[in-house]
């Protein structure tokens, strides 16, 4: 693979045009900079160290893409495949030839998009490897892009990529945080790729909503209600977050129940239990 000179923050795995003093994404209150300071790596370094991409089928029409060993946050990207083309969602911070061939084998990649800046990964590198695929960045999040590129285009609100496949801005975790709604997923019940906008809990039955996951910063009841209503309007039976977890059935109901529980807790309804 023809590697370019982009730098990757070793902590979050997001590509940068330059090895700057500190990654702005990690210096933000939602992330963290290691105690021993900023570290950088490159795709070539990762390649030489034996980094590889793993691709697995989550369900028909949906691939989960991870790096082995993990790069940055270690999240899972997804490829949503429709008859009109596919979407690479929350790209990981590494690219290899085998993964590119695998994705191309599923048909034309229509676009690359991320739910929020922590998930930008190596989006420009993926775009170039896939032949200049457009990178869709939610307009409020453009200021977080550390490696600008001509392939980057902005969107707001709702962006229909193909019939039954849309990016939807729900906000919360970041201004402009978004999800993917894939109507044909879950055998037609609808899938929500919720990433960190609506994060799936380890119990596989509930979700949560936070401004910061590593630093545990909550959101207000009003914002959680707004996110939940926005998601409910989409219609979905299954949900996948960005770490390989999800809720397989009645996911919309699980999100509603989780939101109600969250709002009750942060509103003080259960203070007598603490």
């Amino acid at each position, binding site marked *: 693979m023809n590697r370019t000179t982009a730098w990757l923050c070793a902590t979050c795995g997001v590509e940068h*045009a*330059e*090895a*700057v*003093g*500190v*990654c*702005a994404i990690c*210096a*933000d209150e939602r992330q963290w*900079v290691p105690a021993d300071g900023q570290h950088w790596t490159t795709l070539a370094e990762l390649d030489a160290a034996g980094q590889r991409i793993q691709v697995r089928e989550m369900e028909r029409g949906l691939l989960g893409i991870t790096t082995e060993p993990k790069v940055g946050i270690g999240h899972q990207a997804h490829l949503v495949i429709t008859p009109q083309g596919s979407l690479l969602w929350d790209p990981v911070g590494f690219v290899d030839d085998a993964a590119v061939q695998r994705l191309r084998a599923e048909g034309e990649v229509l676009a690359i998009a991320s739910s929020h800046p922590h998930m930008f990964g190596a989006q420009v590198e993926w775009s170039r490897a896939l032949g200049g695929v457009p990178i869709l960045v939610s307009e409020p999040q453009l*200021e*977080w892009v550390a490696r*600008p*590129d001509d392939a980057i285009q902005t969107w707001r609100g709702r962006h229909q990529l193909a019939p039954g496949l849309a990016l939807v801005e729900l906000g919360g975790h970041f201004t402009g945080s978004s999800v993917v709604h894939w109507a044909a997923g879950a055998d037609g019940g609808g899938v929500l790729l919720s990433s960190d906008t609506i994060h799936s809990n380890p119990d596989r039955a509930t979700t949560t909503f936070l401004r910061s996951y590593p630093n545990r910063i909550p959101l207000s009841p009003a914002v959680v209600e707004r996110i939940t209503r926005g998601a409910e309007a989409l219609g979905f039976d299954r949900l996948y977050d960005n770490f390989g977890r999800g809720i397989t059935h009645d996911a919309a109901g699980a999100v509603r129940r989780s939101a109600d529980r969250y709002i009750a807790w942060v509103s003080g309804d259960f203070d007598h239990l603490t």
Partner: protein
Amino acid sequence: MSPLSVELFTDPACPFAFSAEPVRQRLRWHYGDGLTWTVRMIVLTLEPGEAGKLAQGAPTLQRRFGMPINPVPYPREASSEPACRAVVAARLRAPDRAQPLLRCLRVRTMVGGLLDDPELIDSAVRDAGIDPRELAEWVRSAEVDAALDADIAAARDPAPPARALDHKLGGPAQERRYTAPTYLIGGLAVPGFNPIETYEVAVANADPDLPRRPPPSSVREILTWAEEPLATAEVALIMQTGIEFVRSALREVGRFEPAGADGYWTLASS
């Protein structure tokens, strides 16, 4: 032809003023010795709550304007008064060093340094070409006291045209003041943060005959001209082109020193 006077009300602690450094650098590029600069200190931290606000850092400004700012909060609140006093002392005793000293102070505090730290001030003073022992004597003089007081008072007595733009002023209702940066260009008040075109219009109005150097032909020309390391965003504004185009060009001729969420460029051979 006499040069056009520019009074720049500012404060080394202000991230808005630091984010406006590309404008100052471009004015220097276009007009060079045609402008005579006087930097005047607002001392923002005199106002209750201001040091607390500044201590929160400026992540949004960093992302929006791309200057080398460390986005994390400062470890504590700090007064900008000692640093402002140092700049005023330099202005009186070594006028050609006042702007370089202000720049050195800004560069240090924008990556997390505290402006009331004597070691930070000494280091900036040395980098600006001033003997710190001399400056330590200067700042104790009654003349510097009076000049700093005059700056503080002038900053809090905005010119009528600036008062007409109250949204460009800061401070409490009973004591409106210039925000940083505020330019007085040949007496024309340009308060607050503005695009470069605003200042160019003011210059043209103040002195229509002032020679204006055209944009540079290359980033090498800029780095050769610059007397101090320049941020990527500064080179981009002087070049009047996109930041990624500039970054690629800088890599060919420049040496990059990371700082905050970006860094500074010097000519590779220098």
